[in-house]
């Protein structure tokens, strides 16, 4: 395919790995939470294919208690988008990095300034969970211009007519929302997780990763029987908060082993 050059770094790498038969693993780490840099290095060293760095926002409506607490704690330490992005070049990991944050932190400096700031920090992609397709125009334009890949969320509530419009605007990977609800660990993988991933796989060639409510290695294994990969959020952040970066590395290795199983 000649279109490869059109993909950004994240999508290029994820497609290549997926096409080589590898299942994809993207852990989430709350930026600014003590030990976050070491946690990202631990993810990279233990089989993560990319890392999502959360930039804490005061009102994270898509996040459950664990990520809310980590965000609030980081904010209380005086963390800002700039203080996090300034540290990114020094992370020195060889996997692509995405940020996840809420739209007001983009709107405040303006989409162009924010996209340029991400670019300068060496970030490949961005996820803005409160920016749906209809409102995404100004951001996508700025992101495209700066070469930042915009990862869109696809939700279980989307009718068939809507999904192709979401995936068409998606760069990097498609974030397939695993359940009706906010981030956090659940007892079992919701049936909606694989159902939506299957619907998405039928309509797009972009890698499809399930996130929100994929809570352990077993659930990651189940999700990747249908999806190309998983995003692990609350289960990773809880380990960072309870036990520190080494525990994150061990957990990522455990999930890696699980999804690599035939």
């Amino acid at each position, binding site marked *: 395919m000649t279109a490869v050059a059109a993909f950004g770094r994240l999508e290029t790498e994820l497609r290549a790995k997926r096409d080589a038969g590898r299942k994809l693993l993207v852990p989430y780490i709350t930026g600014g939470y003590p030990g976050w840099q070491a946690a990202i290095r631990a993810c990279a060293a233990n089989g993560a294919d990319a890392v999502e760095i959360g930039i804490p926002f005061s009102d994270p409506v898509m996040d459950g208690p664990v990520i809310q607490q980590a965000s609030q704690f980081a904010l209380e330490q005086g963390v800002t988008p700039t203080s996090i992005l300034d540290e990114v070049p020094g992370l020195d990991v060889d996997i692509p990095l995405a940020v996840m944050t809420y739209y007001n932190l983009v*709107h405040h400096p303006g989409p162009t300034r924010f996209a340029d700031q991400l670019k300068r920090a060496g970030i490949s992609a961005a996820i803005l969970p409160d*920016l749906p397709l209809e409102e995404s125009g100004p951001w996508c334009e700025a992101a495209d211009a700066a070469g930042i890949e915009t990862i869109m969320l696809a939700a279980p509530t989307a009718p068939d007519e809507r999904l192709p419009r979401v995936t068409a605007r998606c760069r990097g990977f498609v974030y397939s929302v695993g359940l009706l609800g*906010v981030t956090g660990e659940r007892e079992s993988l919701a049936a909606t997780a694989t159902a939506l991933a299957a619907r998405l796989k039928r309509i797009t060639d972009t890698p499809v990763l399930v996130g929100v409510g994929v809570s352990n290695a077993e659930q990651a294994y189940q999700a990747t029987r249908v999806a190309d990969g998983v995003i692990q959020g609350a289960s990773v952040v809880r380990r960072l908060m309870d036990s520190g970066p080494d525990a994150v590395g061990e957990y990522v290795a455990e999930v890696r082993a699980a999804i690599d199983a035939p």
Partner: protein
Amino acid sequence: MTALDDTPATLTAPPDATGRFGEFGGRFVPETLVPACQELEAAFDEAWVDPGFRAELTRVHTQYSGRPSIMTECHNLGAQLGIRLILKREDLNHTGSHKINNVIGQALLAKRMGKKRIVADTGAGQHGVASATAAALMGLECKVYMGAVDVARQELNVFRMKLLGAEVEAVHSGSRTLKDAVNEAMRHWVANVADTHFCLGSVVGPHPYPYMVRQFQSVIGDEAHRQIAEMTGGLPDVVVACVGGGSNAMGIFSGFVDESSTRLVGVEPAGGAAIGRGVPGVVHGMRSNLMQDEVGQVEEAVSISAGLDYPGVGPEHSYLASIGRAEYPSVTDDEVVEGFQLLSQTEGIIPALECAHGVAWIKREAPKMQGQTVLMNLSGRGDKDVAQMMDILAGRL
């Protein structure tokens, strides 16, 4: 101000197709909620032009909440201040505030959409009580999120909600006030969107809420426009209302916004002055004025009044401010405490602390309004605030 030239012929027009009043509004919600917002928009548009729905709404207003609400001329306070002061008595509605107007509308709509449950945010607890009441009346389940700080200062309303059969959940995140109650109600809605209607309490949130809630509250302005003509033979010079999210203000403004000779004044608390101190931002699904720090983190409002303790404001207010049609001054907590006592002692009407903001502004500005007719929306009664005021005024009475 030239912007008025570009505005639509009537300022009561609906927002544009993206849910915007000028540059304000929109629908900034997680993807999961987009279909629900679209469904609600369609259901409301259909219901609003359905004579059957409107007749039912009017029936509940007249037979249950006690509409039309009366107008009271304040002869004592008016004489003292040198103005003609008239109150629109939303405090006399069933449940004690204007919040019931919106809730009756949304509960009827929820039933029409086949929803089984409503989830609500509340600050002062007035919207929570109204939601619990409408749910009891219409056979819906009701869950109310309320900041832990507000649970403590509005104890009476918490008990009322429980008595009415609602489940009340205290919110311990963030500033533990209205902003966080809205966050938590939105999170609940994301998880339960199939059978639950989000009964938002003000002209805030994603489209269609700011427009829909304004329409449900426009009954205040429609009545007041007619009533003031009967009382005075004309229009008021000034219309005053307090502004938290801005629903009681939009309700009464909507009756006068096309009357260019009438000044519209929305009074914000000094510690929650979204228009006075905020800049445009995006939170709770809307682009509107928002108190935020230098990077865009939302600031915590600090107000004596739980109902106005909110760092944002409805997008239509941002729009009216941007075109110069309405003005949004603020008053301090101390002025509010004084206003609360002033209306009680001169007129025998104990106002909600929210409305005491309007009284405080009128008292301060009266020297510049001598001889004018001032109409204030008395959006709620003060019973809920009496315990809090007992602490504040301890030993002073």
